[in-house]
């Protein structure tokens, strides 16, 4: 049967193969059914191919354009690349390394994005794991209600927090940042602190919920045995719970990493927008607004900004999908 399926559509072939095996078990010889199924699977193949192509074209077009010289980008469509060939790395060199004041100078913003994302993810992860451990393993009367309350906090949209949190930060955190700047002048007055704290605050409810699901599944025997051996809660947490919860920690870490890296709203409000602090998304959004016609720069900058989360995503995809499934089906 597989010889009938068109060779250039591998997916259709696979479908046909699978169904042939299936049919052999259930109803051998029902030819009409087989023909009908092949027809539907062929339509299915074409439709899914069309969707896949549609979904890829926009990104592909931008990637191709980012390697074309400026005058070609601005006068010809990227799909005419074979009629109007041209390849250059100048766009990337310009957005990343050029120090002229007109270029986007993305290097500084990438460093900011990394600094913001790594620390914010770590804070969220550790504090959430501690809270999840307490919720799961220390028995206390009101603890379940408190857990439900924290879980319910996920329904508060970010927008509800922004104005008051900014007020709190400017009243309490600003003096501390100024003080830090006075002691260690190399640290700018605008620093990462507000972004670290804000991202951790907004990420905690979901993190606690996901990690709690996992940590409460650790067999009670293990914890009890450690207790009998005289381990304190601090020791149990670091030596037993954290190592056992590594898969869940990894899933959430990827989540939080991608979420923080891709954030724009929190950055707009708490970063101050300078080269000292602002992440690359904020810079890119600014470029799209003020220099929306500089396609040679925009295309390269866009790719610089999406390449790191894409690397994280592709290398740790399995954890990411697992986290997504756990989060969505249990929530």
């Amino acid at each position: 049967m597989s010889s009938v399926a068109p060779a250039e559509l591998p997916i259709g072939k696979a479908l046909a193969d699978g169904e042939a095996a299936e049919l052999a078990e259930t109803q051998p010889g029902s030819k009409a059914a087989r023909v009908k199924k092949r027809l539907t699977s062929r339509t299915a193949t074409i439709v899914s191919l069309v969707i896949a192509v549609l979904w890829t074209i926009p990104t592909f077009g931008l990637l191709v354009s980012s390697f074309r010289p400026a005058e070609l980008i601005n006068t010809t469509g990227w799909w005419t690349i074979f009629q109007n060939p041209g390849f250059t790395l100048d766009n990337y060199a310009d957005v990343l390394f050029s120090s002229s004041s007109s270029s986007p100078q993305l290097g500084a913003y990438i460093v900011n994005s990394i600094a913001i994302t790594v620390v914010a993810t770590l804070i969220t992860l550790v504090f959430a794991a501690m809270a999840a451990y307490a919720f799961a393993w220390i028995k206390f009367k009101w603890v379940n209600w408190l857990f439900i309350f924290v879980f319910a906090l996920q329904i508060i949209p970010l927008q509800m927090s922004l104005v008051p949190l900014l007020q709190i930060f400017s009243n309490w955190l600003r003096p501390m940042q100024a003080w830090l700047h006075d002691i260690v002048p190399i640290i700018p007055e605008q620093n990462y602190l507000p972004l670290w704290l804000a991202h951790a605050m907004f990420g905690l409810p979901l993190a606690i919920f996901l990690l709690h699901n996992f940590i409460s599944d650790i067999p009670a025997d293990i914890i009890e045995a450690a207790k009998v051996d005289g381990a304190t809660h601090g020791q149990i947490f670091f030596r037993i719970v954290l190592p056992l919860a590594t898969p869940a920690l990894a899933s959430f870490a990827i989540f939080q990493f991608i979420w923080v890296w891709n954030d724009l709203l929190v950055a707009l409000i708490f970063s101050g927008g300078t080269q000292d602090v602002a992440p690359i998304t904020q810079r890119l959004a600014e470029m799209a607004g003020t220099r929306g016609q500089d396609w040679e720069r925009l295309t390269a900058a866009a790719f610089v900004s999406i390449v790191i989360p894409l690397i994280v995503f592709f290398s740790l995809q399995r954890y990411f999908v697992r986290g997504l499934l756990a989060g969505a089906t249990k929530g």
Partner: protein
Amino acid sequence: MTTADLLGKILQVVMGLAVFAAVVGLLIFFIDKAPKKGRDYWQLALFLLPAMLFVVIGLVYPAIRTSLLAFQNNSGEWTFDNFIWMFTQPAAIRTLINTFIWVALAPIISTAIGLAYAVFIDKSRGEKYYKVILFMPIAISFVGASVIWKFVYEYRSGDREQIGLLNAIVVAFGGEPVQWMQTDPINTILLIVIMIWIQTGFAMVLLSAAIKGVPSEQVEAAQLDGTNAWQRFRNVTVPGIRGSLVVVFTTISIATLKVFDIVRTMTAGNFDTSVVANEMYTQAFRASEVGRGSALALILFVFVLPIIIYNVNVLRKQREIR
């Protein structure tokens, strides 16, 4: 960026991590030295302390304060003006209408395409690669996605060659190029397309996992009864994945209600494209209308609430059935 700048940034991160490690170490120290009397109580409190502190300062108190601010004007007097503004001013009403259009279109289309795709590629060869193609936009920021699509929607005036794909297609079919982002109402629709492009992969991955969870005996039994593929899909697969469908649909609905980055990056809310979340930012942080911004944030919360209640109810019923 000078070397000194870079050193300053590295120093900040190192200092931040050091302070953080010290805080955690101190907490663990106190946890292990907790008084014997009511020991579990103290330990619990200390384990929860940092997270609770963050959540109270970052979410609980601000949510309450925003709810109050929504009923105050800029000089702090109590008033309903912010809501009167929201439901009477044409620009504000347009913002609400746009938000409804977003919620009416993006979740249903993303879920439908994601479901169709998940069904079509199920058990096919190369399923993994098909999935990655659709799923990849999830890792791309909304800002990055906006730039990608801004390029597709690019407009060139006059007889100049179009470099945006959409206008190139229009011209190829003999049409006049359109300034997509400036043309109401097509601009809102085209912004929604970006959201669909991002969210379909999410829907596809969750639904694909759910489809694989449908017991194969049920599908085979239906096959023996002589049903066709569509009947099996309608009567076996869809009921089997109903819970996941609800989760996907509601999750995308909530994300759509809160959509900000796309509108901000593409049009900044101009040309009648603003939505509640974008207007909230514009009012509170650009126009210094904190009351109006807070009222919009509160409305957003009110919109999100029934969706979540529905979601929780469906999940609970599903669990009871099982």
